[in-house]
């Protein structure tokens, strides 16, 4: 059975958080299934706690959005700008334009390899309560989907040949 590169294992550990214990094939002596068992056994507890903390602290509207769509929206406490926080721990925040369309992406996370629910709650509270500090820490990217504001009108301004 092929060995899993240590770099990949390191990424797994980072994704699971500092509390995760991921055994290598050599450590466990039982090959790849040990890794999968470790992922299944450890991660869900932390992730379940994180998701519970998140749900406890979403507004009723945000909770409804999250259950239905897998994301929820927040309003920036200082700019009034709207953001969409999607399930995930990285590259999971969309800045929305005034018509609610994706206009860019933000990426910031709390330090410490936290479970996804904690990351999303930290992102929500940061944008609602200390938005400018969050924006200072964040990396920003153009929207993956569409830059509506720069989009030329379809077939507009074209001179027939």
């Amino acid at each position, binding site marked *: 059975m092929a060995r899993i590169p240590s770099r990949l294992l390191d990424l797994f550990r980072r994704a699971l*958080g*500092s*509390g*995760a214990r991921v055994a290598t094939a050599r450590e466990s002596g039982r090959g790849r299934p040990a890794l999968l068992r470790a992922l299944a056994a450890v991660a869900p*507890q*932390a*992730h*379940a*706690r*994180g998701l*519970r*903390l998140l749900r*406890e*602290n*979403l*507004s*009723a509207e*945000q*909770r409804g959005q999250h259950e239905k769509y897998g994301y929820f929206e927040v309003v920036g406490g200082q700019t009034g700008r709207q953001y969409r926080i999607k399930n995930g*721990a*990285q*590259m999971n925040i969309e800045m929305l334009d005034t018509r609610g369309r994706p206009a860019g992406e933000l*990426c*910031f*996370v*709390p*330090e*410490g*390899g*936290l*479970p996804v*629910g*904690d990351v999303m*709650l*930290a992102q929500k*509270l*940061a944008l*609602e*309560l*200390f938005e400018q*500090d*969050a924006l200072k*820490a*964040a*990396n920003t990217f153009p929207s993956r989907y569409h830059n509506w504001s720069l989009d030329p009108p379809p077939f507009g301004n074209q001179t027939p040949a």
Partner: protein
Amino acid sequence: MGVQIIMDGSGDTRHEFDSSDQESVARAERRFQELTDKGFRAVALGRNGSDGEVLRSFDPKVERTLFIPQLRGG
């Protein structure tokens, strides 16, 4: 009763304190100071997801305080 909730790799760690007990309040205040000195942000959580508030100093009357680790670009 108050509770301090610290985000960590296990999801969160909770420390309860009795706001009528001086020793318990002093311990909670020390924990608040240590965490904020490390760069954690303290937020008084609202009820049912209502607006919270950033805490600049320890307030024993706050029922639920969440400590968020320092943010960094991802």
